[in-house]
């Protein structure tokens, strides 16, 4: 599997840079999620890689080969569109075999390969169906099968599961990941759903404002966000304004807190942001003063919504650790060792 490399890739629409100087090395054979809020440039980046947009600047390389100027139809990538883009005038089998038909393969081979691919996505014997006869999940699988028809060197998917309802979505996430593991094809999925990214990906690339904010394994991005944006976007996070006094002490709301050795400090002394995951917030006899404003019972967990000096915080507990606090109670908060990331504001 060849690696994909982007060098200073930029795409401007008028004065706006949708993709702004992106440089990335994407290792072959991995499952990668491009994650970011809507408008962050992730879809544009995917379309640049597919050859559906021309970059304003920068290069795209596969292995040692520069493919920046190669038109979309000669890149031999597979792509699944957000709308799926299944051809309504063709049968399921003809949709899947379309890339082969374009390459002039004989009918027998096309039919054999279409049947093989439909087996792979667990739609055996559906080749003769019309697209409009399929359910949403089945269409999804047809689009995936079609994208894989020519054994692409790179498999691109643009928000492929966004049209499915929640249950089916979670199911398809697992299935897509299993399929990729079996085939080993380098796969790049655009999504705005961080849970989806954490479920499927070997590597997560977080984007905002056209730039890459962080790239790393899912747990790394979750536990160790590179900046305030990533901390806020991946999972929910409490972000507290604080002052870093030295490597081991921060001051929050006039109260000094000692950092543990596992806490990560990524800022110089001075004003900083503390990122603390809700599951790392504890109730303690000593600590920050806060008032409970709401108790949300989620079954698998209990969430306390807190008012800490006019700022909202959340704390998450397992049901068995449910604190005996009610709405209106005053509580004291402390942070679990290793749960604090000190970031530049």
């Amino acid at each position, binding site marked *: 599997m060849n690696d994909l490399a982007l060098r200073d890739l930029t795409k401007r629409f008028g004065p706006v840079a949708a993709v702004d100087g992106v440089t990335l090395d994407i290792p072959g054979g991995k499952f990668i999620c491009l994650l970011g809020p809507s408008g962050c440039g992730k879809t544009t980046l995917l379309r640049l890689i597919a*050859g*559906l*947009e*021309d970059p304003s600047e920068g290069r795209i390389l596969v292995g040692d080969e520069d493919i920046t*100027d*190669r*038109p*979309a139809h000669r890149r031999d990538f597979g792509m699944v569109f957000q709308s799926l883009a299944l051809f309504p005038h063709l049968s399921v089998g003809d949709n899947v075999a379309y890339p082969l038909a374009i390459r002039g393969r004989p009918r027998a081979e096309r039919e054999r390969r279409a049947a093989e691919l439909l087996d792979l996505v667990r739609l055996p014997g559906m080749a003769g169906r019309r697209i409009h006869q399929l359910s949403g999940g089945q269409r999804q699988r047809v689009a995936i099968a079609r994208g894989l028809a020519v054994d692409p060197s790179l498999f691109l998917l643009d928000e492929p599961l966004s049209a499915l309802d929640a249950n089916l979505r979670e199911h398809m996430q697992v299935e897509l990941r299993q399929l990729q593991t079996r085939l080993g094809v380098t796969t790049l999925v655009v999504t705005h759903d961080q849970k989806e990214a954490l479920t499927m990906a070997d590597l997560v690339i977080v984007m905002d404002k056209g730039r890459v904010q962080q790239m790393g394994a899912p747990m790394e991005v979750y536990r160790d966000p590179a900046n305030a944006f990533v901390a806020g976007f991946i999972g929910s996070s409490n972000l507290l304004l604080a002052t870093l006094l030295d490597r081991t002490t921060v001051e929050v709301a006039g109260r000094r807190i000692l950092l543990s050795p596992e806490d990560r400090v990524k800022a110089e002394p001075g004003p900083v942001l503390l990122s603390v995951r809700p599951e790392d917030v504890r109730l303690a006899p000593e600590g920050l003063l806060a008032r409970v404003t709401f108790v949300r019972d989620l079954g698998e967990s209990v969430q306390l919504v807190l008012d800490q000096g006019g700022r909202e915080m959340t704390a998450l507990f397992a049901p068995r650790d449910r604190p005996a606090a009610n709405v209106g109670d005053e509580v004291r908060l402390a942070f679990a060792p290793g749960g604090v990331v000190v970031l530049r504001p």
Partner: protein
Amino acid sequence: MSAREAPTPYWLGLLPALALLVLFLVPFGIMLAVSVAGREAGGFFTWGFDLASYARVFSPFVGRILVTSVAIALGAAILAVALALPFTVILGGMSRRAQTVVLVVLLSALSLSEVIIGFSVNTLLSQTAGVGNLLAWLGLLEAPRAFTPGLFALMTGLVYLSFPYAVLVLYPPVARLDPELAQAARTMGASPLRTFATVTVPLLRAPILGATILVFVFVLGSYLLPQVLGRPQHWTLSVHITDQAIYQSNLPFAAAMAVLLLAVALALVGLSLLVTRERRTGT
């Protein structure tokens, strides 16, 4: 360069461009040239520059014809739109299947030749068949009589001709109307008629005006019904153009009148575009 490649090759536009240029623009150019050409007795025309035909166009004779044409066309257009507006609103509220059936009937009527409409309405209003016969049989008339030719027959024919057109011009804006606006008025206690008058019609003011102008131009183009159903004093500009071109063999005069008609039609179509556009951006 790949992505910016348009989905169609550039030369694809050449054939239609050429066809429209040669077969549409050139004929118009020639018509302009003919309007200042000299008349040739017994033949068609001789090239030249002679404003005599335009002098005739700006004469009381043509002035009267223009006034007649405008009066008749305006009357028919207002009648047709008045009938078509409630029709279209009701149509827009029907199921897709019912809409399709009604649209098939309307399109069939709209595509009918003026010749056939003229013949049909003429027959309907004639002495031996149709209304006159029916009224006599009912005892309302002493003897069957014909209602054609005459202004009544002509207006009937023109409204018949333009009603389907008026519906189809009104159909897109009416179909795009949010049905919840009318429903909201109903929940606030407005009767259906009141809802129509206080919500639907005001919302459609610009499209109604635009449609009236377009139907007016459409009726202005009627060249046959005035001959078949009207009397000579009801002949419109379109009829006179045909008459001059074919029976009086005066192509330059016909062309000059056609240029006048073109100017009126273009001005009105432009006006209708302006009306509908200003309303859309203005509010």
